[in-house]
């Protein structure tokens, strides 16, 4: 549960540059389709939402269904015009939200 997300993005960028951001959240992503050995359906439990914002403004988000593989990986881009902080969040089916932050210096 208390797994930490993995993030990969540059620490520095030029003003107006489009940077690449890679994120990976360790999670089983139980689809709700599988059955246990007694034939009972294993309840669904996935990360259903991901958001990324920069200095409080939305950059990218995703609505996630059980068809996204375990340890959901998302790669996307962001155009940076100023130094600041990226905030990422992953919402679990159980209501918990995992967050992470990363700073970038833009010159």
């Amino acid at each position, binding site marked *: 549960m208390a797994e930490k997300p993995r993030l990969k993005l540059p620490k520095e960028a030029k003003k107006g540059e489009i940077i690449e951001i890679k994120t990976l959240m360790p999670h089983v992503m139980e689809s709700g389709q599988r059955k246990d050995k007694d034939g009972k359906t294993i309840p669904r439990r996935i990360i259903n939402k991901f958001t990324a914002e920069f200095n409080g403004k*939305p950059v990218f988000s995703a609505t996630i269904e059980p068809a996204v593989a375990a340890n959901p990986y998302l*790669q*996307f881009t962001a155009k940076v015009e100023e130094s600041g902080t990226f905030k990422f969040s992953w919402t679990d089916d159980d209501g918990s939200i995992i967050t992470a932050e990363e700073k970038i210096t833009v010159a």
Partner: protein
Amino acid sequence: MRNMTRRAALAVGAGAVTLTVVGWNQGAHAAAKEAADDVAKFTGGKAATQGKITIELPEIAENGNTVPLTVSVDAPMTAENYVSDVLVVSEGNPNPGVVTFHFTPLSGKAEAQTRIRLAATQNIVVVAKTSKGEFYAAQKQVKVTIGGCGG
């Protein structure tokens, strides 16, 4: 409603239609219809134009449990004209929904990559919505050797 989805299915294009004609089996047929329903909900019944979208998927996925998928849409991504939402649906999984990407002008590019589960050989349908209310669609077939989704 039924009519609308059928029209939407046609709008989504050749891939979906071919699949329906070829017929495969009942399961795939139902899944393709559900996927078309999802697309119709997304577009509000509006027709989508083919093009502007690039779908990167392996031609043959040996393991359906994790298949890399990259979607990119050719768009200026300015405050006045950008791709806001990109819907990805499956025509051969137990549920059609896969993922929806939401972009803003701050995204810089309408491009995202993830890893998905595929239960069987099927078409993946992608529909993009722009800030101007236009819709674009594309689809790609992927052959799956071993299905995912814990089947």
